[in-house]
Protein backbone atom coordinates (compact mmCIF):
# COMPACT_ATOMS: atom_id res chain seq x y z
CA UNK A 1 0.00 0.00 0.00
CA UNK A 2 1.36 3.40 -1.01
CA UNK A 3 1.36 5.72 1.98
CA UNK A 4 0.65 9.39 1.61
CA UNK A 5 0.54 11.85 4.47
CA UNK A 6 -1.76 14.88 4.62
CA UNK A 7 -2.75 17.42 7.21
CA UNK A 8 -6.43 17.09 8.05
CA UNK A 9 -8.80 18.00 10.85
CA UNK A 10 -10.85 15.17 12.33
CA UNK A 11 -13.95 16.29 10.45
CA UNK A 12 -12.03 16.50 7.16
CA UNK A 13 -10.55 13.06 7.79
CA UNK A 14 -14.07 11.64 8.08
CA UNK A 15 -15.22 13.44 4.91
CA UNK A 16 -12.23 12.23 2.88
CA UNK A 17 -12.63 8.66 4.16
CA UNK A 18 -16.35 8.66 3.26
CA UNK A 19 -15.36 9.98 -0.18
CA UNK A 20 -13.25 6.84 -0.74
CA UNK A 21 -16.21 4.70 0.32
CA UNK A 22 -18.55 6.72 -1.93
CA UNK A 23 -21.79 5.56 -0.23
CA UNK A 24 -25.05 5.48 -2.19
CA UNK A 25 -26.86 7.89 0.12
CA UNK A 26 -25.92 10.58 2.64
CA UNK A 27 -28.73 12.31 4.55
CA UNK A 28 -27.70 14.85 7.16
CA UNK A 29 -28.55 18.04 9.00
CA UNK A 30 -25.73 20.40 10.03
CA UNK A 31 -24.74 20.91 13.66
CA UNK A 32 -21.47 22.17 15.16
CA UNK A 33 -18.92 20.55 15.45
CA UNK A 34 -20.01 18.01 12.82
CA UNK A 35 -20.68 20.61 10.12
CA UNK A 36 -17.38 20.36 8.23
CA UNK A 37 -17.93 16.65 7.52
CA UNK A 38 -21.12 17.34 5.61
CA UNK A 39 -19.88 20.63 4.10
CA UNK A 40 -16.82 18.96 2.59
CA UNK A 41 -18.88 16.04 1.38
CA UNK A 42 -21.42 18.33 -0.27
CA UNK A 43 -18.47 19.84 -2.18
CA UNK A 44 -17.49 16.36 -3.38
CA UNK A 45 -21.07 15.76 -4.52
CA UNK A 46 -21.30 19.15 -6.21
CA UNK A 47 -17.95 18.66 -7.99
CA UNK A 48 -19.04 15.26 -9.24
CA UNK A 49 -16.19 13.55 -7.36
CA UNK A 50 -18.66 11.06 -5.86
CA UNK A 51 -22.03 9.80 -7.01
CA UNK A 52 -23.71 9.75 -3.60
CA UNK A 53 -27.34 10.90 -3.43
CA UNK A 54 -27.10 13.78 -0.98
CA UNK A 55 -30.30 14.48 0.96
CA UNK A 56 -30.25 17.74 2.91
CA UNK A 57 -33.08 17.17 5.38
CA UNK A 58 -34.82 19.52 7.83
CA UNK A 59 -33.89 17.78 11.09
CA UNK A 60 -31.84 14.93 12.48
CA UNK A 61 -35.00 12.90 13.10
CA UNK A 62 -35.60 13.13 9.35
CA UNK A 63 -31.92 12.48 8.60
CA UNK A 64 -31.95 9.15 10.40
CA UNK A 65 -35.40 8.30 8.97
CA UNK A 66 -34.14 8.97 5.42
CA UNK A 67 -31.08 6.82 6.20
CA UNK A 68 -33.30 3.93 7.35
CA UNK A 69 -35.46 4.15 4.20
CA UNK A 70 -32.42 4.27 1.94
CA UNK A 71 -30.67 1.47 3.79
CA UNK A 72 -33.75 -0.76 3.41
CA UNK A 73 -33.29 -0.65 -0.37
CA UNK A 74 -29.87 -2.24 0.12
CA UNK A 75 -28.01 1.05 -0.22
CA UNK A 76 -24.81 1.92 1.63
CA UNK A 77 -25.67 4.92 3.81
CA UNK A 78 -23.75 7.48 5.86
CA UNK A 79 -24.73 10.34 8.15
CA UNK A 80 -23.13 12.50 10.83
CA UNK A 81 -24.36 14.49 13.81
CA UNK A 82 -23.59 15.69 17.34
CA UNK A 83 -25.17 16.40 20.72
CA UNK A 84 -28.77 17.63 20.34
CA UNK A 85 -28.82 16.23 16.81
CA UNK A 86 -28.03 12.75 18.08
CA UNK A 87 -30.64 13.14 20.80
CA UNK A 88 -33.21 14.04 18.15
CA UNK A 89 -32.23 10.89 16.22
CA UNK A 90 -32.62 8.73 19.31
CA UNK A 91 -36.06 7.34 18.46
CA UNK A 92 -34.95 6.32 14.98
CA UNK A 93 -31.64 4.83 16.21
CA UNK A 94 -33.71 1.94 17.54
CA UNK A 95 -35.58 1.65 14.25
CA UNK A 96 -32.26 1.51 12.36
CA UNK A 97 -30.94 -1.34 14.50
CA UNK A 98 -34.29 -3.13 14.72
CA UNK A 99 -34.62 -3.04 10.93
CA UNK A 100 -30.99 -4.22 10.76
CA UNK A 101 -29.76 -1.26 8.70
CA UNK A 102 -25.94 -1.06 8.71
CA UNK A 103 -25.93 2.75 8.52
CA UNK A 104 -22.65 4.44 9.49
CA UNK A 105 -22.93 7.49 11.74
CA UNK A 106 -20.06 9.82 12.63
CA UNK A 107 -20.60 11.60 15.94
CA UNK A 108 -18.70 14.81 16.66
CA UNK A 109 -19.04 14.32 20.41
CA UNK A 110 -20.43 17.49 21.98
CA UNK A 111 -21.98 18.48 25.31
CA UNK A 112 -25.75 18.62 25.74
CA UNK A 113 -27.59 21.87 26.51
CA UNK A 114 -28.34 23.55 28.93
CA UNK A 115 -26.31 25.64 29.32
CA UNK A 116 -25.63 25.69 25.62
CA UNK A 117 -22.10 24.57 24.82
CA UNK A 118 -20.55 23.48 21.54
CA UNK A 119 -17.45 21.74 22.90
CA UNK A 120 -16.28 18.19 23.42
CA UNK A 121 -18.02 15.68 25.69
CA UNK A 122 -18.85 12.03 25.04
CA UNK A 123 -22.17 11.77 26.88
CA UNK A 124 -24.16 12.24 23.65
CA UNK A 125 -22.83 8.97 22.23
CA UNK A 126 -22.55 7.02 25.50
CA UNK A 127 -26.27 7.41 26.24
CA UNK A 128 -26.94 5.54 22.98
CA UNK A 129 -25.29 2.45 24.47
CA UNK A 130 -28.56 0.48 24.58
CA UNK A 131 -29.70 1.24 21.03
CA UNK A 132 -28.10 -1.89 19.57
CA UNK A 133 -25.55 0.08 17.57
CA UNK A 134 -21.92 -0.92 17.35
CA UNK A 135 -20.12 2.01 19.00
CA UNK A 136 -16.50 3.09 18.66
CA UNK A 137 -14.44 6.04 19.87
CA UNK A 138 -11.45 7.59 18.09
CA UNK A 139 -8.50 9.43 19.58
CA UNK A 140 -7.20 11.37 16.59
CA UNK A 141 -7.87 12.47 13.03
CA UNK A 142 -6.11 9.28 11.89
CA UNK A 143 -8.47 7.11 13.91
CA UNK A 144 -11.44 9.12 12.63
CA UNK A 145 -10.28 8.31 9.09
CA UNK A 146 -9.66 4.64 9.83
CA UNK A 147 -12.82 4.05 11.85
CA UNK A 148 -14.94 5.60 9.09
CA UNK A 149 -13.79 2.96 6.64
CA UNK A 150 -13.88 0.06 9.11
CA UNK A 151 -17.37 0.94 10.36
CA UNK A 152 -18.94 0.06 6.99
CA UNK A 153 -17.24 -3.31 6.96
CA UNK A 154 -18.17 -4.16 10.55
CA UNK A 155 -21.84 -3.21 10.28
CA UNK A 156 -22.42 -4.73 6.86
CA UNK A 157 -20.96 -8.12 7.75
CA UNK A 158 -23.70 -10.75 7.13
CA UNK A 159 -23.38 -11.95 10.76
CA UNK A 160 -23.83 -8.40 12.09
CA UNK A 161 -26.16 -6.24 9.92
CA UNK A 162 -26.26 -3.54 12.56
CA UNK A 163 -25.66 0.20 12.38
CA UNK A 164 -22.31 1.55 13.59
CA UNK A 165 -21.48 4.88 15.17
CA UNK A 166 -18.03 6.23 15.94
CA UNK A 167 -17.23 9.35 17.91
CA UNK A 168 -14.51 11.96 17.88
CA UNK A 169 -14.51 14.77 20.41
CA UNK A 170 -15.74 18.16 19.25
CA UNK A 171 -12.98 20.66 18.42
CA UNK A 172 -10.26 18.67 20.24
CA UNK A 173 -10.31 16.22 17.32
CA UNK A 174 -12.94 17.50 14.88
CA UNK A 175 -11.32 20.91 14.36
CA UNK A 176 -7.67 20.16 15.07
CA UNK A 177 -5.25 19.53 12.24
CA UNK A 178 -3.10 16.41 12.48
CA UNK A 179 -1.09 14.16 10.22
CA UNK A 180 -3.21 11.57 8.50
CA UNK A 181 -1.88 8.65 6.48
CA UNK A 182 -4.38 8.35 3.69
CA UNK A 183 -5.52 5.36 1.66
CA UNK A 184 -6.16 5.12 -2.04
CA UNK A 185 -9.43 4.30 -3.73
CA UNK A 186 -7.90 0.94 -4.69
CA UNK A 187 -7.00 0.17 -1.05
CA UNK A 188 -10.57 0.81 0.03
CA UNK A 189 -12.01 -1.19 -2.88
CA UNK A 190 -9.79 -4.07 -1.84
CA UNK A 191 -10.90 -3.78 1.78
CA UNK A 192 -14.61 -3.12 1.38
CA UNK A 193 -16.95 -5.07 -0.93
CA UNK A 194 -18.34 -2.97 -3.78
CA UNK A 195 -21.87 -3.49 -2.53
CA UNK A 196 -23.69 -4.67 0.56
CA UNK A 197 -24.58 -8.33 0.74
CA UNK A 198 -28.32 -7.98 1.43
CA UNK A 199 -30.78 -10.82 1.55
CA UNK A 200 -33.99 -8.90 2.18
CA UNK A 201 -34.60 -5.42 0.82
CA UNK A 202 -37.24 -3.10 -0.59
CA UNK A 203 -37.68 -4.12 -4.19
CA UNK A 204 -40.40 -3.48 -6.76
CA UNK A 205 -39.95 -7.05 -8.02
CA UNK A 206 -40.52 -8.90 -4.78
CA UNK A 207 -43.38 -8.30 -2.38
CA UNK A 208 -42.35 -8.46 1.27
CA UNK A 209 -43.43 -6.83 4.52
CA UNK A 210 -40.97 -4.86 6.63
CA UNK A 211 -41.45 -3.07 9.90
CA UNK A 212 -44.78 -4.62 10.69
CA UNK A 213 -46.47 -4.74 14.10
CA UNK A 214 -44.95 -7.45 16.25
CA UNK A 215 -46.45 -7.95 19.68
CA UNK A 216 -45.94 -10.55 22.40
CA UNK A 217 -45.71 -13.32 19.82
CA UNK A 218 -42.36 -12.47 18.15
CA UNK A 219 -40.97 -9.19 19.53
CA UNK A 220 -38.60 -10.89 21.94
CA UNK A 221 -37.22 -13.27 19.31
CA UNK A 222 -36.37 -10.33 17.05
CA UNK A 223 -34.66 -8.54 19.94
CA UNK A 224 -32.74 -11.72 20.79
CA UNK A 225 -31.46 -11.80 17.20
CA UNK A 226 -30.12 -8.28 17.71
CA UNK A 227 -28.26 -9.43 20.82
CA UNK A 228 -26.75 -12.31 18.87
CA UNK A 229 -25.77 -9.92 16.09
CA UNK A 230 -24.10 -7.72 18.71
CA UNK A 231 -22.17 -10.71 20.04
CA UNK A 232 -21.10 -11.50 16.48
CA UNK A 233 -20.02 -7.87 16.08
CA UNK A 234 -17.41 -8.41 18.80
CA UNK A 235 -15.74 -11.14 16.74
CA UNK A 236 -16.24 -9.36 13.43
CA UNK A 237 -14.80 -6.07 14.74
CA UNK A 238 -11.68 -7.92 15.86
CA UNK A 239 -11.35 -9.57 12.43
CA UNK A 240 -11.97 -6.33 10.56
CA UNK A 241 -9.39 -4.48 12.67
CA UNK A 242 -6.84 -7.25 12.14
CA UNK A 243 -7.42 -7.08 8.40
CA UNK A 244 -7.17 -3.29 8.46
CA UNK A 245 -3.88 -3.51 10.38
CA UNK A 246 -2.58 -5.96 7.79
CA UNK A 247 -3.54 -3.62 4.96
CA UNK A 248 -2.34 -0.31 6.42
CA UNK A 249 0.36 -1.28 8.91
CA UNK A 250 -1.46 0.83 11.52
CA UNK A 251 -2.14 -1.25 14.60
CA UNK A 252 -5.84 -1.22 15.27
CA UNK A 253 -7.40 -3.18 18.14
CA UNK A 254 -10.67 -3.04 20.03
CA UNK A 255 -8.69 -2.03 23.12
CA UNK A 256 -5.25 -0.41 22.97
CA UNK A 257 -2.74 -1.47 25.60
CA UNK A 258 0.02 1.06 26.27
CA UNK A 259 2.96 0.01 28.48
CA UNK A 260 0.76 -2.35 30.49
CA UNK A 261 3.07 -5.42 30.41
CA UNK A 262 4.86 -4.70 33.70
CA UNK A 263 2.47 -2.05 34.99
CA UNK A 264 1.19 -1.99 38.57
CA UNK A 265 -1.21 0.89 37.95
CA UNK A 266 -3.21 1.89 34.91
CA UNK A 267 -5.27 4.60 33.31
CA UNK A 268 -8.46 3.66 31.51
CA UNK A 269 -9.97 6.10 29.04
CA UNK A 270 -11.37 6.53 25.55
CA UNK A 271 -11.21 9.15 22.80
CA UNK A 272 -8.78 12.06 22.91
CA UNK A 273 -8.32 11.68 26.69
CA UNK A 274 -6.48 8.43 25.99
CA UNK A 275 -3.80 10.47 24.22
CA UNK A 276 -3.33 12.62 27.31
CA UNK A 277 -3.21 9.50 29.51
CA UNK A 278 -0.42 8.06 27.34
CA UNK A 279 1.52 11.35 27.55
CA UNK A 280 1.23 11.16 31.34
CA UNK A 281 2.38 7.52 31.31
CA UNK A 282 5.53 8.66 29.47
CA UNK A 283 6.18 11.31 32.12
CA UNK A 284 5.50 8.98 35.06
CA UNK A 285 7.63 6.21 33.54
CA UNK A 286 10.56 8.66 33.44
CA UNK A 287 10.15 8.99 37.20
CA UNK A 288 10.17 5.20 37.56
CA UNK A 289 6.42 4.66 38.08
CA UNK A 290 5.17 1.31 36.81
CA UNK A 291 2.13 2.60 35.00
CA UNK A 292 0.38 1.95 31.71
CA UNK A 293 -2.78 2.97 29.90
CA UNK A 294 -5.75 1.14 28.44
CA UNK A 295 -7.81 2.76 25.73
CA UNK A 296 -11.30 1.48 25.04
CA UNK A 297 -11.87 1.88 21.31
CA UNK A 298 -14.93 -0.38 21.06
CA UNK A 299 -17.64 0.49 23.57
CA UNK A 300 -20.49 -1.62 22.13
CA UNK A 301 -20.22 -4.55 22.09
CA UNK A 302 -18.23 -4.06 25.29
CA UNK A 303 -14.96 -6.04 25.13
CA UNK A 304 -15.34 -7.79 28.49
CA UNK A 305 -12.58 -10.39 28.13
CA UNK A 306 -10.06 -8.03 26.53
CA UNK A 307 -10.48 -5.57 29.38
CA UNK A 308 -10.03 -8.29 31.99
CA UNK A 309 -6.93 -9.63 30.22
CA UNK A 310 -5.43 -6.15 30.00
CA UNK A 311 -6.08 -5.28 33.64
CA UNK A 312 -5.39 -8.59 35.35
CA UNK A 313 -2.75 -8.09 38.03
CA UNK A 314 -3.02 -4.29 38.03
CA UNK A 315 -3.43 -2.75 41.50
CA UNK A 316 -5.32 0.50 40.85
CA UNK A 317 -7.04 1.84 37.76
CA UNK A 318 -7.65 5.56 37.22
CA UNK A 319 -10.66 5.94 34.93
CA UNK A 320 -10.72 9.27 33.08
CA UNK A 321 -14.25 9.85 31.89
CA UNK A 322 -15.37 12.81 29.75
CA UNK A 323 -18.99 12.14 30.63
CA UNK A 324 -21.26 12.36 33.65
CA UNK A 325 -24.27 10.36 34.77
CA UNK A 326 -26.02 12.28 37.52
CA UNK A 327 -26.90 10.46 40.72
CA UNK A 328 -25.57 7.20 39.34
CA UNK A 329 -23.40 4.67 41.21
CA UNK A 330 -20.86 4.97 38.40
CA UNK A 331 -20.54 6.56 35.00
CA UNK A 332 -21.55 4.53 31.95
CA UNK A 333 -17.98 3.47 31.25
CA UNK A 334 -17.02 2.85 34.87
CA UNK A 335 -20.20 0.81 35.35
CA UNK A 336 -19.35 -1.27 32.29
CA UNK A 337 -15.80 -1.90 33.52
CA UNK A 338 -16.97 -2.79 37.03
CA UNK A 339 -19.54 -5.25 35.65
CA UNK A 340 -16.92 -6.78 33.35
CA UNK A 341 -14.49 -7.34 36.24
CA UNK A 342 -16.87 -8.19 39.09
CA UNK A 343 -16.05 -11.43 40.86
CA UNK A 344 -12.91 -12.07 38.82
CA UNK A 345 -9.46 -12.66 40.29
CA UNK A 346 -6.57 -10.15 40.49
CA UNK A 347 -8.58 -7.19 39.28
CA UNK A 348 -7.66 -3.57 40.08
CA UNK A 349 -9.55 -1.24 42.37
CA UNK A 350 -11.46 1.22 40.17
CA UNK A 351 -11.33 4.96 40.65
CA UNK A 352 -13.47 7.08 38.36
CA UNK A 353 -12.73 10.73 37.65
CA UNK A 354 -15.43 12.68 35.82
CA UNK A 355 -13.74 15.50 33.94
CA UNK A 356 -13.64 17.61 30.83
CA UNK A 357 -17.37 18.32 30.56
CA UNK A 358 -18.25 20.92 27.93
CA UNK A 359 -14.70 20.85 26.59
CA UNK A 360 -13.01 21.78 29.91
CA UNK A 361 -9.35 20.87 29.67
CA UNK A 362 -7.94 18.36 32.12
CA UNK A 363 -4.24 19.24 32.20
CA UNK A 364 -1.50 16.65 32.45
CA UNK A 365 -0.66 17.72 36.06
CA UNK A 366 -4.35 17.24 36.95
CA UNK A 367 -4.24 13.74 35.45
CA UNK A 368 -1.19 12.97 37.61
CA UNK A 369 -3.12 14.28 40.63
CA UNK A 370 -5.95 11.85 39.86
CA UNK A 371 -3.44 9.03 39.53
CA UNK A 372 -1.86 9.80 42.93
CA UNK A 373 -5.32 9.92 44.53
CA UNK A 374 -6.23 6.54 43.03
CA UNK A 375 -3.07 5.02 44.46
CA UNK A 376 -3.92 6.34 47.93
CA UNK A 377 -7.51 5.03 47.67
CA UNK A 378 -6.09 1.66 46.68
CA UNK A 379 -3.81 1.62 49.75
CA UNK A 380 -6.80 2.53 51.91
CA UNK A 381 -8.65 -0.48 50.56
CA UNK A 382 -11.28 1.54 48.68
CA UNK A 383 -12.70 0.54 45.34
CA UNK A 384 -15.35 1.91 42.97
CA UNK A 385 -14.69 5.47 44.05
CA UNK A 386 -16.08 8.20 41.84
CA UNK A 387 -15.48 11.94 41.93
CA UNK A 388 -15.44 15.04 39.76
CA UNK A 389 -12.15 16.78 39.03
CA UNK A 390 -11.07 19.97 37.28
CA UNK A 391 -13.97 22.21 38.32
CA UNK A 392 -14.35 25.19 40.65
CA UNK A 393 -16.29 24.32 43.80
Amino acid sequence: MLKQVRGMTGDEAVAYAVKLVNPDVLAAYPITPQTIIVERYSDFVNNGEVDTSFIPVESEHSAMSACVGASMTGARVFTATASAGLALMYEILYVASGMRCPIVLAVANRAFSAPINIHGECTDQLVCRDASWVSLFGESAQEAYDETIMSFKIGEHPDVQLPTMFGIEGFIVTHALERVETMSKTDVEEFLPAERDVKYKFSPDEVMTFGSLVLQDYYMEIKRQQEEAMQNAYKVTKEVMAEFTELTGRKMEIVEKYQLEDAEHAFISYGATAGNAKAVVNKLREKGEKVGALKIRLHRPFPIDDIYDALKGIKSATILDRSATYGSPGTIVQGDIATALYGKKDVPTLHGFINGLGGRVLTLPQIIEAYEKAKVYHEEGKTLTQEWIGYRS
Partner: protein
Amino acid sequence: MKLVEITDVRLNGRGGQGAVTASRLLAEAAILENQYVHAFPNFGPERAGAPVTSYARICSEPFTEKTEVYNPHIVVVIDPTLLDDVPVADGIKEGGTIVVNYEGLKESLMRFFEGCHANIYKVAGSKIAMEEIGRNVPNLVMLGALIKVTKLVKLESLLDVTTRRFPGVLGEKNVVAIKRAYEEVE
Protein backbone atom coordinates in the same frame (compact mmCIF):
# COMPACT_ATOMS: atom_id res chain seq x y z
CA MET B 1 12.59 6.04 26.12
CA LYS B 2 13.79 9.64 26.02
CA LEU B 3 11.01 12.12 25.46
CA VAL B 4 11.50 14.63 22.66
CA GLU B 5 10.23 18.07 23.61
CA ILE B 6 7.23 19.38 21.71
CA THR B 7 7.34 22.98 20.46
CA ASP B 8 4.19 24.90 21.36
CA VAL B 9 3.27 27.94 19.29
CA ARG B 10 0.53 30.44 20.08
CA LEU B 11 -0.75 32.96 17.55
CA ASN B 12 -2.50 36.02 18.96
CA GLY B 13 -4.61 37.81 16.39
CA ARG B 14 -7.97 39.41 15.82
CA GLY B 15 -11.01 37.71 14.32
CA GLY B 16 -10.79 37.89 10.53
CA GLN B 17 -7.01 38.22 10.30
CA GLY B 18 -6.43 34.55 9.58
CA ALA B 19 -4.85 33.35 12.83
CA VAL B 20 -6.52 29.97 12.30
CA THR B 21 -5.29 29.69 8.71
CA ALA B 22 -1.80 30.63 9.88
CA SER B 23 -1.64 27.89 12.54
CA ARG B 24 -2.96 25.44 10.01
CA LEU B 25 -0.43 26.33 7.31
CA LEU B 26 2.42 26.30 9.83
CA ALA B 27 1.38 22.77 10.82
CA GLU B 28 0.99 21.69 7.19
CA ALA B 29 4.51 22.97 6.46
CA ALA B 30 5.79 20.92 9.41
CA ILE B 31 3.98 17.83 8.06
CA LEU B 32 5.77 18.37 4.71
CA GLU B 33 9.00 18.06 6.69
CA ASN B 34 7.78 14.81 8.21
CA GLN B 35 7.05 16.31 11.61
CA TYR B 36 4.05 15.57 13.83
CA VAL B 37 1.47 18.25 14.66
CA HIS B 38 -1.69 19.17 16.52
CA ALA B 39 -2.92 22.58 15.37
CA PHE B 40 -6.15 24.03 16.65
CA PRO B 41 -8.03 27.26 17.15
CA ASN B 42 -9.58 28.40 20.40
CA PHE B 43 -13.20 28.45 19.32
CA GLY B 44 -15.73 30.60 21.11
CA PRO B 45 -18.11 33.39 20.26
CA GLU B 46 -15.50 35.25 18.14
CA ARG B 47 -16.40 37.93 15.69
CA ALA B 48 -14.37 40.14 13.39
CA GLY B 49 -11.94 42.28 15.35
CA ALA B 50 -12.15 40.45 18.68
CA PRO B 51 -8.91 39.03 20.11
CA VAL B 52 -8.47 35.37 19.10
CA THR B 53 -5.82 32.72 19.60
CA SER B 54 -4.81 29.66 17.66
CA TYR B 55 -2.14 27.09 18.38
CA ALA B 56 0.26 24.69 16.74
CA ARG B 57 2.09 21.89 18.52
CA ILE B 58 5.01 20.57 16.51
CA CYS B 59 7.40 17.71 17.21
CA SER B 60 9.83 15.57 15.24
CA GLU B 61 8.44 12.45 16.97
CA PRO B 62 4.82 11.25 17.28
CA PHE B 63 3.00 12.59 20.35
CA THR B 64 -0.48 12.01 21.72
CA GLU B 65 -1.26 14.88 24.06
CA LYS B 66 -4.27 16.95 23.15
CA THR B 67 -4.46 19.52 25.91
CA GLU B 68 -4.51 23.27 25.30
CA VAL B 69 -1.31 25.31 25.20
CA TYR B 70 -0.69 27.30 28.38
CA ASN B 71 3.09 27.73 28.22
CA PRO B 72 4.10 28.34 24.62
CA HIS B 73 7.71 28.35 23.49
CA ILE B 74 6.78 30.78 20.74
CA VAL B 75 4.19 33.55 20.49
CA VAL B 76 3.32 35.39 17.30
CA VAL B 77 1.45 38.69 17.68
CA ILE B 78 -0.37 39.14 14.39
CA ASP B 79 -1.99 42.46 15.27
CA PRO B 80 -0.01 45.31 16.88
CA THR B 81 -3.12 46.78 18.53
CA LEU B 82 -3.28 43.67 20.75
CA LEU B 83 -0.24 44.94 22.66
CA ASP B 84 -2.46 47.45 24.52
CA ASP B 85 -5.37 45.05 25.11
CA VAL B 86 -4.08 41.52 25.62
CA PRO B 87 -1.23 40.13 27.78
CA VAL B 88 0.43 38.55 24.74
CA ALA B 89 3.46 37.29 26.71
CA ASP B 90 1.19 35.34 29.10
CA GLY B 91 2.64 31.95 29.99
CA ILE B 92 5.61 32.22 27.62
CA LYS B 93 8.40 29.84 28.54
CA GLU B 94 11.64 31.31 29.94
CA GLY B 95 13.94 31.89 26.98
CA GLY B 96 10.99 31.64 24.57
CA THR B 97 10.47 33.70 21.46
CA ILE B 98 7.91 36.42 20.74
CA VAL B 99 7.55 37.80 17.22
CA VAL B 100 5.48 40.98 16.95
CA ASN B 101 3.89 42.77 14.03
CA TYR B 102 5.25 46.24 14.88
CA GLU B 103 6.22 49.17 12.73
CA GLY B 104 8.01 51.37 15.27
CA LEU B 105 11.47 51.09 16.72
CA LYS B 106 12.38 47.98 18.64
CA GLU B 107 13.23 50.11 21.71
CA SER B 108 9.67 51.42 21.85
CA LEU B 109 8.27 47.90 21.44
CA MET B 110 10.28 46.67 24.42
CA ARG B 111 8.18 48.77 26.85
CA PHE B 112 5.40 46.22 26.38
CA PHE B 113 7.68 43.40 27.55
CA GLU B 114 9.32 44.74 30.71
CA GLY B 115 10.44 41.88 32.93
CA CYS B 116 9.71 39.33 30.21
CA HIS B 117 12.45 36.72 29.78
CA ALA B 118 11.66 35.94 26.16
CA ASN B 119 13.56 36.95 23.04
CA ILE B 120 11.58 39.65 21.29
CA TYR B 121 11.60 40.14 17.53
CA LYS B 122 9.63 42.50 15.36
CA VAL B 123 8.69 42.97 11.74
CA ALA B 124 6.39 45.54 10.12
CA GLY B 125 3.89 42.86 9.13
CA SER B 126 0.91 45.11 8.39
CA LYS B 127 3.05 47.50 6.31
CA ILE B 128 4.44 44.58 4.28
CA ALA B 129 0.95 43.12 3.84
CA MET B 130 -0.44 46.47 2.64
CA GLU B 131 2.44 47.01 0.22
CA GLU B 132 2.64 43.48 -1.20
CA ILE B 133 -0.87 42.04 -0.83
CA GLY B 134 -2.84 45.28 -0.80
CA ARG B 135 -4.80 44.31 2.32
CA ASN B 136 -3.98 44.24 6.02
CA VAL B 137 -3.83 40.43 6.30
CA PRO B 138 -0.48 39.92 8.01
CA ASN B 139 -1.08 36.31 9.16
CA LEU B 140 1.20 34.47 6.73
CA VAL B 141 3.60 37.43 6.59
CA MET B 142 4.20 36.92 10.32
CA LEU B 143 4.95 33.24 9.75
CA GLY B 144 7.78 34.35 7.44
CA ALA B 145 9.33 36.26 10.33
CA LEU B 146 8.63 33.45 12.78
CA ILE B 147 10.39 30.72 10.83
CA LYS B 148 13.43 32.92 10.20
CA VAL B 149 14.08 33.40 13.92
CA THR B 150 12.98 29.95 15.14
CA LYS B 151 13.91 27.66 12.21
CA LEU B 152 10.67 25.80 12.99
CA VAL B 153 10.15 24.92 9.32
CA LYS B 154 12.04 25.78 6.14
CA LEU B 155 11.02 28.79 4.04
CA GLU B 156 10.40 26.53 1.02
CA SER B 157 7.92 24.43 3.00
CA LEU B 158 5.97 27.49 4.10
CA LEU B 159 5.90 28.88 0.55
CA ASP B 160 4.82 25.48 -0.76
CA VAL B 161 1.78 25.19 1.52
CA THR B 162 0.92 28.87 0.92
CA THR B 163 0.74 28.53 -2.86
CA ARG B 164 -1.21 25.29 -2.54
CA ARG B 165 -3.75 26.90 -0.23
CA PHE B 166 -3.96 30.10 -2.29
CA PRO B 167 -3.33 29.22 -5.92
CA GLY B 168 -2.90 32.19 -8.27
CA VAL B 169 -2.24 35.85 -7.62
CA LEU B 170 -3.10 35.87 -3.91
CA GLY B 171 -0.63 33.08 -3.24
CA GLU B 172 2.08 34.80 -5.29
CA LYS B 173 1.58 38.06 -3.41
CA ASN B 174 1.75 36.23 -0.10
CA VAL B 175 4.98 34.55 -1.17
CA VAL B 176 6.59 37.94 -1.85
CA ALA B 177 5.33 39.26 1.48
CA ILE B 178 6.49 36.19 3.42
CA LYS B 179 9.96 36.47 1.86
CA ARG B 180 10.14 40.15 2.79
CA ALA B 181 9.19 39.44 6.42
CA TYR B 182 11.76 36.62 6.44
CA GLU B 183 14.43 39.16 5.43
CA GLU B 184 13.26 42.14 7.43
CA VAL B 185 12.58 40.61 10.86
CA GLU B 186 14.84 42.06 13.57
